[in-house]
C-alpha cells in the first residue's frame, strides 16, 4: 500500500519535473525574448518610444504609412492567393481538367522558392532606370516600363501572391478533397443548378479552408520582409517589416521594438480572427467516410482554356523565375539576359574593370564561408529542433493534462503568430547584451541556432507529434505483448517507424533555414554570414548577378532537400488521388 502510493508520488514528481524542465526550455526559447522586447519598450528610458511611434511628429512615417501599406499588402495578397489558389484547387480536385496531377504538383512549388528569389527575378525582368543601376530585361527589349510596374506596391503584391498562393492552394485543395461527391449529388437530386450547388454547398463547405488560407497568406504577407525590401524600399515604400528593420539598423531599437510588437499584434489578430470564424458549432468535418466516390465536374468546352490558364499561372510562378535567375546570373547585363553569357559571376577572379572588382561567388572567400555557415546552421537547427520538438511532443502526449502541459502547448505554438523579423528583433532584445554570467550572444552562431530553433518550434512539435502518434500506442504495445525488451522494441519497431518521419521533418527544417531571410536578416553580422542575407545585401547594393547566383545556389540546395524529404515522407496529397 505504502509502496504503491510512494511510487505514484515519485512518478508524479518525475512527470512534473520533466514538465517543468520542458516549460523552462520553451520559456527561455520563446517566452523570454517576447517578454523582454515588451519590457524593453516599457523601461523608463524607452517608454517614450510608444508615443513617438503612435502619436508623435514622426508617427506618420514611423507607423501609420507603413501600417497602411502592410494592411494593403495583407488584404491584397490574401484575396489574390485565395482566388488563384482556390481556382487551381477547384480545377485539380473537382474537375476533369487534363494533367491534374502535374498542375497539382506545380501549384505547391512556388512556396518552396524563397520570396526574395521571386522578387529578384521580378527585378531582373521589370526594373526600369528610375533608381539607377542596371535596367531590366523588358526595358532592354525597348519597352517602356512604368514606375508602378517596376517598383512599389504593385510588384510587391504580385510577387507575394506568386509566392503565397501555393499555401492557399494546399489548404483549399485538402479541404475540397473531403467534399464528398455525394454532397454534390444530393444537391443535384434536389434539383439545384450548378451555380446554386457551387454557392449553396461547395463554397460553404470549403469556407473554413478558404478562411484559413486567407488568414495564413495574410499573416505571411504582412510579415514578409524580402519582397517589400527589394521592390519597395528603393522608392521609399515602407511596410512595418522594412520599417522595423530600418529602425534597428540605425540603432533606434526602442522604436523598432514598438513596431515589432505592433506587427506581432496585427499578424496574431488576423490569425486569431480567422480561427474564430472557422471554429464554433459548425465543425465542417464531413460526416462518416463510408461510401462516396469521386465524380468530376465536366468542363466541356472550357476544358482547354482553363487548363491553359492554370498552366500559365504555374509556369509564371515556378519555371519562369528560376530561368530568369539562372540567366541573369550568367548575363553581364540584365537588359540582355540571354546574350554574352559568362561564368564570371560564378567563378571569375576579382577584376577591377568588372563589377567593381567583385570576384565570382565561388572565388569569394566571404561567400564560401557564408555557404558553409548556412549549411552548418541548417544542419544544426535540423538536429536541435527535431530533438526539441520530439521532447515537447512526448511530454504533451504522455502528460498532456494540467496547467503545466497547457502552458507548454500554448508557448510552443506561439511562434506561429510572430513574424520572423519581429522574432529576430526579440532575440536581439534578449541576447544582445550579457545576461548575468553569460556573455552577449549577438553576432554568434549559437544565437542563430537558438533563434531558429525557437522559431521553428511549432513545426517541430507537429512533426514530433505525428511521429509519436505513429509509433506509440498499439504498435508498441503489441510488440511488448511478445515479450520484446525495451531496447529490442526500440531497434525493431520504434526507430524504423520513426526514422523516416523524423528525417523528413529535419530536412524540411533545413530547407526552411536555407531560404529564410526575415528571421536572420536582423541577426546577421559579418562574423556570421548567411547566404540569404548576402544575396539580399548584394541585391540592394546593385550587384544583381551575384545576388541571383547566390539565390540559385540556395534554390538548388533547398529543392534537392525538399525532394529528398518528399521521398522519405511519401507525402500524402489526397487531392491528387483519382
Amino acid at each position: 500500500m505504502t509502496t504503491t502510493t510512494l511510487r505514484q508520488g515519485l512518478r508524479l514528481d518525475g512527470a512534473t519535473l520533466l514538465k517543468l524542465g520542458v516549460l523552462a526550455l520553451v520559456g527561455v526559447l520563446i517566452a523570454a525574448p517576447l517578454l523582454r522586447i515588451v519590457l524593453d519598450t516599457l523601461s523608463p528610458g524607452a517608454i517614450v518610444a510608444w508615443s513617438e511611434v503612435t502619436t508623435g511628429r514622426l508617427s506618420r512615417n514611423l507607423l501609420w504609412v507603413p501600417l497602411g501599406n502592410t494592411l494593403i499588402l495583407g488584404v491584397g495578397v490574401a484575396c489574390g492567393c485565395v482566388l488563384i489558389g482556390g481556382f487551381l484547387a477547384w480545377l485539380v480536385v473537382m474537375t476533369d481538367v487534363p494533367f491534374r496531377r502535374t498542375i497539382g504538383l506545380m501549384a505547391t512549388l512556388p512556396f518552396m522558392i524563397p520570396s526574395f528569389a521571386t522578387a529578384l527575378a521580378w527585378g531582373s525582368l521589370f526594373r526600369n532606370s528610375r533608381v539607377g543601376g542596371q535596367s531590366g530585361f523588358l526595358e532592354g527589349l525597348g519597352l517602356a516600363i512604368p514606375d508602378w510596374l517596376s517598383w512599389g506596391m504593385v510588384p510587391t503584391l504580385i510577387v507575394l501572391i506568386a509566392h503565397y498562393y501555393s499555401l492557399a492552394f494546399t489548404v483549399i485543395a485538402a479541404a475540397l478533397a473531403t467534399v464528398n461527391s455525394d454532397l454534390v449529388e444530393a444537391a443535384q437530386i434536389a434539383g439545384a443548378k450548378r451555380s446554386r450547388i457551387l454557392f449553396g454547398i461547395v463554397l460553404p463547405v470549403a469556407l473554413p479552408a478558404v478562411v484559413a488560407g486567407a488568414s495564413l497568406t495574410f499573416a505571411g504577407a504582412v510579415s514578409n520582409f524580402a519582397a517589400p525590401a527589394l521592390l519597395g524600399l528603393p522608392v521609399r515604400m515602407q511596410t512595418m517589416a522594412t520599417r522595423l528593420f530600418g529602425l534597428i539598423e540605425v540603432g533606434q531599437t526602442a522604436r523598432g521594438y514598438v513596431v515589432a510588437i505592433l506587427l506581432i499584434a496585427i499578424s496574431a489578430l488576423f490569425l486569431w480572427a480567422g480561427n474564430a470564424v472557422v471554429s464554433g458549432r459548425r465543425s465542417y468535418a464531413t460526416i462518416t467516410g463510408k461510401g462516396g466516390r469521386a465524380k468530376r465536374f465536366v468542363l466541356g468546352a472550357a476544358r482547354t482554356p482553363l487548363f491553359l490558364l492554370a498552366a500559365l499561372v504555374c509556369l509564371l510562378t515556378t519555371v519562369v523565375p528560376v530561368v530568369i535567375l539562372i540567366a541573369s546570373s550568367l548575363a553581364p547585363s540584365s537588359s540582355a539576359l540571354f546574350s554574352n553569357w559568362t561564368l564570371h559571376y560564378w567563378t571569375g577572379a576579382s577584376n577591377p574593370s568588372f563589377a567593381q572588382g567583385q570576384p565570382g561567388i565561388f572565388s569569394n572567400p566571404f561567400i564560401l564561408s557564408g555557404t558553409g555557415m548556412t549549411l552548418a546552421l541548417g544542419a544544426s537547427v535540423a538536429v536541435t529542433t527535431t530533438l526539441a520538438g520530439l521532447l515537447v511532443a512526448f511530454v504533451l502526449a504522455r502528460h498532456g493534462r494540467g496547467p503545466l502541459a497547457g502552458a507548454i502547448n500554448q508557448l510552443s505554438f506561439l511562434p506561429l503568430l510572430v513574424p520572423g523579423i519581429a522574432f529576430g528583433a526579440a532575440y536581439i532584445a534578449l541576447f544582445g547584451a550579457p545576461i548575468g554570467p553569460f556573455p552577449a550572444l549577438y553576432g554568434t552562431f549559437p544565437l542563430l541556432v537558438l533563434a531558429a530553433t525557437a522559431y521553428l518550434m511549432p513545426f517541430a512539435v507537429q512533426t514530433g507529434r505525428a511521429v509519436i502518434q505513429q509509433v506509440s500506442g498499439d504498435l508498441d504495445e503489441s510488440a511488448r505483448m511478445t515479450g520484446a525488451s525495451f531496447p529490442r522494441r526500440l531497434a525493431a519497431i520504434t526507430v524504423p517507424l520513426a526514422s523516416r518521419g523524423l528525417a523528413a521533418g529535419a530536412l524540411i527544417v533545413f530547407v526552411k533555414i536555407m531560404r529564410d531571410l526575415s528571421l536572420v536578416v536582423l541577426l546577421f553580422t559579418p562574423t556570421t554570414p548567411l547566404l540569404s542575407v548576402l544575396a539580399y545585401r548584394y541585391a540592394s547594393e546593385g550587384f544583381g548577378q551575384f545576388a541571383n547566383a547566390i539565390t540559385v545556389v540556395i534554390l538548388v540546395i533547398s529543392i534537392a532537400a525538399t525532394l529528398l524529404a518528399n521521398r522519405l515522407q511519401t507525402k500524402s496529397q489526397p487531392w491528387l488521388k483519382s
Partner: protein
Amino acid sequence: MIRLENLGKSFGSFDAVKEVSLDVPRGAFLVLVGPSGCGKSTMLRMLAGLETPSAGRIVFGEHTVSDGGQGWTIDPSRRNVGLVFQSYALWPHMTVAGNVDWPLKVKGLGKAERRQRIEEVLRLLGIDGLAGRYPNEISGGQQQRVAIARMIAPRPGILLFDEPLSNLDAKLRVEMRTELLRVHRATGATSVYVTHDQVEAMTMASHVAVLNNGRVEQFGPPAELVANPATAFVATFVGTPPANLVPVAALPEALAAGLPAEASAMYRPEELGIVAAPGPDSLAFDFAEASPVAGRTMVTGTSGDRRLTAVVDGAPALAVGDTVHFRLPPRPAVVFAASGERLK
C-alpha cells in the same frame, strides 16, 4: 411503376450491369441484393439519374426516364426520385432543419409551406427535437433519420436507398429497418433499396432481385426465393441460414443414385438431422460451431472448404475436434447443374 428493360451499363470494357429486366408495381419495396461488386449500386445510380445506362431503358410509370440506346437520361431533379446515400451526404454547414429545408427551397416552395413540411417530416422520423443541431452534433442513427427526412420532404414518388444501414451498429440496424418500412408505408411511394445483407432483403422487400456479376439471378418475392431458388447462387445466398449445397459426387452412394454425377444437391437446414453414428444416409463433417436459435440449435460442420448447416432439436454436446454426422433426407429439395442452373 418501375420498369427496367434490358438495362446495361459498361465502364470501358467492364460490364457492371448486364441485360437487367424487371417490373415492380406502385408501392412496391424492391430490394436489390448481392455481394459487393455485383452492380447493385450502379443500378441504383442509374435509377437516380446519376449515371446514364449504356443499353436498355428505365421507365417510371408511363415515362421513359433513361434510354441507354440513345444515350440520354432525364436529370436527377426531374425524375421525381429521392436518394439516401450510404454516406448520408448531409451538408455539414446546415442544421438538421436546414438540410431538410434546402431541397424545398430549391424547389421554390413558400416559407410557410416549407416550415410546415419540415416539421411534418421531422416528426415522422421522430427527430423534431434536433432541428437546430448540426450534423456533426448528432449520432449516426440520428444522421440516418435526417437523411431520410431530407429525402422524403419534397414528396418524391420513388425512394432510393443505397445501403443506408451499413454504417449503423447491429441493434440500430434492426430498429431502422422497421422505421424505414413505416416511412415507406406512410409515404405510399415506391422504394428501391440496395443492400448486400440478405437478411435486410428478406425482411423488408415485397420484391427481391438477387444480383450477381451484373445480372439478375432471380427476381421475386422473398418467400419464393427461399422456396424455389432458381440458381445455385441464390440457394446459397438467401435464407437464414442459407440452404446447403452438396456435390453429388460427395453424397453417400444410396442418395446419389439417379442424380447426374456433375450436379449439386440442395438440402434445407431444417431437413437435416444429426445422428450419433454414421449410417448409409449420413455425411461426416468436422464440428465447427453450434448456436441456439429460437429454441432449436444451429449446427455447422466443415470439411475442407465445404460447410453444412443443420437446424435441429436437441443437438448433442459437441466440441471442436469432434466429428458430426449429418443425416440427409432421401431426396434433395432441389438439384442444380454444374453451371448453377436448376435441374428440376
